[in-house]
């Protein structure tokens, strides 16, 4: 008998069900509206500016209400879980059998444990705030109920992902969030560019999903189970550091890299910014893209005995972190800057979970959800305000997302300005904001692991683990510097200096309504206070290491294996590490403040640099072009020439389609030749045939 039986934890099934009902109800409203209006062409936003959907209030009650209610349930379940003893273990609820096939038994089951509930709180909590924000942001959109039904669908699948009690159930959520992401990226599908971005996200994610599937097959073939509890119990059967467990972990990580936009599969995330901004905040910053980090942390027991795989995670994470940060330096689209920032921060999280600092990674996941959601929603508020400004002066060509056309918004939007600066300082790592604590913990953990842990003694492609981890630490420091630079650059160009908004639009730019500012304020408070979730022993401003202690039953074993033998850091070293991190953050802010002068911004139509590093940067290192040339183009060529023209047309069509056709036509042709229509011919045939028969009869005698 589990101690949680009979408590609020039994209500966990309500968590995904509520958003699902919201999806069904709003989806029905959307379809009914479309049928009634006999919509043939989707109206554009400009046509419907200022007019609301007829069921505006009902859609809000369903869409926002379902997620807020789910958040309430999550709090209740969380409270019940907090009341249970530490050793209680995961509380698994089984609702039915999904795949009862031979030895394979997969149940529809949810798992209430400390990791899944932290994630569920983030998903429903941040999700509810973003739903509220969307009420203001999407108010004029003709597809209003459709938007909320997709958003609810996403929350449903995301909760399935974090609550699933086995890899198979997680995979359902995993694919489902991919679907919701695709639908929302292409939400304004009447523009091909948006629809293409959705397709790109979906297809790139398939590459990762393939890895996830192979990992599941391997787990099933060798352990005979996909259930988290059983996998954790049977991990000792796998040879530690062996090829099998390494392969499982690497394939799992391929899946994680797809979903969490790591090298080289990150290319879909910047394009995913084609969706509405609240979607970028919820799906492509706060929740879905952290699914990969969650998956690695969930599989901590497996990764702990596969040091090579863990070091791979570190390497990929570190490379992604700095690569994306560098690209972010030169982006002019406000959302693209944030997108590359997200990729970079996700890389940091992977360095943490790869180096066995699972709590640090998850801590950064949580704080990142706060401040990145705040940054995206703030950017959304800016875009929304500029969009209204342009609309007021009938300017339909200016880009509301271009940093070169902003500036001086500080006076127009003081609340957004202040909150965005808080989030910027947090992501840069300035104390005492949330990002400082989580980023510092990642840096300190990687530094400590590099100094002689079990992981540091392993080798990766012949390189000692200590070198890999040490390099990763250095890269993360540089990344932290770049993070401070590109974020300060964004703030400086958007809010400071003189206004560069074309025409009279600036006069119409105003602070957004409270329904949008409210969530910003709440996220701002969380950004300030988030660090208190897991205070380091060095700064005992309250209870120390709360999250560390809370997650110990889930990730503690794996972390202990990888960290075995790591020397404790001295007090002086820790202080020095913190000092370096803060100095780097402040230096980055100072550099950007000096270098990025709002009065020296190039015009939007200024030619891009055609040589040197700036040329590489403005083309994002040609990664998209390289993938296009090295993978997509050969694939298309092989498909077209070999598979289509060669096998499909050459073999299948010729042998089985056109061959029989030609044969029957030939026989038919011969038949028509016999049917001359000339009676004389027929008579001759009959006469000869009769003679032949008679002749044969004579011969037979």
């Amino acid at each position: 008998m589990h101690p949680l039986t009979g408590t609020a934890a039994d209500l966990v099934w309500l968590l995904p069900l509520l958003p699902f009902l919201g999806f069904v109800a709003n989806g029905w409203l959307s379809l009914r509206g479309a049928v009634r209006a006999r919509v043939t062409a989707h109206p554009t936003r400009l046509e419907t500016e200022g007019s609301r959907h007829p069921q505006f209030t009902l859609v809000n009650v369903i869409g926002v209400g379902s997620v807020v209610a789910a958040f309430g349930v999550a709090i209740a379940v969380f409270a019940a879980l907090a009341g249970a003893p530490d050793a209680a273990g995961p509380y698994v609820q089984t609702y039915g059998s999904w795949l009862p096939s031979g030895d394979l038994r997969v149940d529809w089951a949810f798992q209430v444990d400390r990791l899944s509930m932290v994630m569920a709180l983030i998903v429903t909590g941040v999700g509810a705030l973003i739903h509220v924000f969307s009420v203001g942001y999407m108010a004029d959109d003709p597809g209003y109920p459709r938007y909320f039904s997709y958003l609810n669908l996403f929350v449903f699948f995301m909760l399935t992902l974090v609550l699933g009690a086995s890899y198979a159930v997680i995979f359902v959520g995993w694919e489902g969030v991919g679907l919701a992401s695709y639908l929302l990226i292409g939400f304004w599908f009447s523009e091909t560019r948006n629809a293409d971005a959705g397709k790109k996200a979906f297809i790139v994610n398939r590459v990762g999903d393939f890895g996830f599937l192979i990992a599941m097959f391997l787990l099933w073939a060798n352990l005979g189970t996909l259930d988290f509890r059983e996998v954790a119990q049977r991990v000792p059967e796998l040879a530690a550091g062996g090829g099998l467990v390494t392969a499982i972990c690497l394939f799992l990580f391929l899946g994680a890299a797809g979903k969490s936009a790591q090298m080289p599969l990150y290319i879909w995330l910047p394009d995913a910014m084609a969706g509405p901004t609240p979607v970028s905040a919820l799906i492509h910053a706060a929740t879905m893209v952290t699914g990969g980090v969650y998956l690695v942390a969930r599989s901590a027991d497996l990764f702990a005995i596969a040091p090579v795989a863990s070091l791979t995670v570190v390497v990929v994470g570190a490379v992604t972190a700095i690569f994306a940060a560098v690209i972010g330096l030169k982006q002019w689209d406000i959302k693209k800057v944030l997108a590359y920032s997200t990729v970079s921060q996700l890389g940091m999280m992977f360095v943490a979970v790869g180096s066995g600092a699972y709590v640090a990674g998850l801590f950064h996941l949580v704080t990142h959800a706060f401040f990145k959601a705040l940054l995206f929603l703030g950017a959304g508020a800016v875009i929304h305000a500029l969009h209204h400004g342009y609309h007021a002066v009938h300017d339909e060509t200016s880009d509301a997302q271009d940093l070169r056309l902003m500036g001086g918004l500080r006076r127009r939007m003081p609340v957004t300005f202040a909150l965005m600066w808080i989030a910027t300082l947090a992501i840069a790592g300035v104390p005492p904001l949330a990002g400082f604590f989580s980023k510092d913990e990642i840096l300190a953990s990687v530094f400590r692991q590099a100094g002689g842990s079990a992981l540091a003694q392993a080798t990766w492609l012949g390189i000692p683990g200590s070198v890999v981890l040490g390099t990763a630490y250095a890269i993360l420091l540089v990344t932290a510097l770049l993070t401070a630079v590109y974020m300060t650059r964004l703030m400086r160009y958007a809010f400071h200096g003189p206004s560069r908004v074309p025409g009279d639009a600036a006069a119409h730019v105003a602070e957004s309504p409270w329904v949008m500012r409210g969530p910003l304020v709440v996220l701002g408070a969380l950004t300030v206070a988030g660090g208190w979730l897991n205070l380091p022993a060095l700064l005992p401003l309250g209870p120390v290491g709360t999250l560390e202690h809370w997650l110990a039953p889930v990730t503690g074993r794996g972390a202990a294996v990888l960290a075995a033998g790591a020397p404790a850091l001295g007090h002086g070293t820790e202080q020095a590490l913190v000092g370096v991190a803060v100095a780097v953050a402040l230096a980055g802010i100072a550099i950007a403040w000096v270098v990025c002068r709002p009065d020296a911004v190039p015009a939007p139509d200024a030619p891009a640099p055609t040589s040197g590093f700036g040329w590489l940067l403005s083309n994002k290192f040609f990664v998209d072009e390289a993938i296009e040339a090295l993978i997509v183009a050969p694939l298309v060529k092989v498909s077209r020439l070999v598979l289509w023209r060669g096998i499909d047309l050459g073999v299948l069509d010729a042998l089985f389609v056109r061959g029989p056709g030609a044969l029957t036509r030939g026989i038919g042709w011969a038949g028509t030749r016999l049917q001359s229509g000339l009676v004389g011919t027929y008579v001759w045939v009959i006469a000869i045939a009769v003679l032949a028969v008679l002749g044969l009869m004579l011969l037979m005698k």
Partner: protein
Amino acid sequence: MIGASLFVSAVLFAIGVGGVLVRRNAIMLFMCVELMLNAVNLSFVALSRLHGVTGQVVVIFVMTVAAAEAAVGLAIIISAFRHFKSADLADIRLLGG
């Protein structure tokens, strides 16, 4: 006696077949077919001397059918002639493939 009758019958039949094979006029063809029928009738009558009266009965039947056939056949030929302005079978080939 029978031998001579059968010989005449065979000669008549051969003339009929030859006519059908070489003539192109529908009327001529038709008459050749009649010739073949009557050649067969002759051999029936001749053989009835050996095999009883059955052969002579069959001849009555054949003549009846031939009369009906002549009526239908000539009607068709006249109709076709009206349509094609010709009784030449080489001109009547609508059923050709």
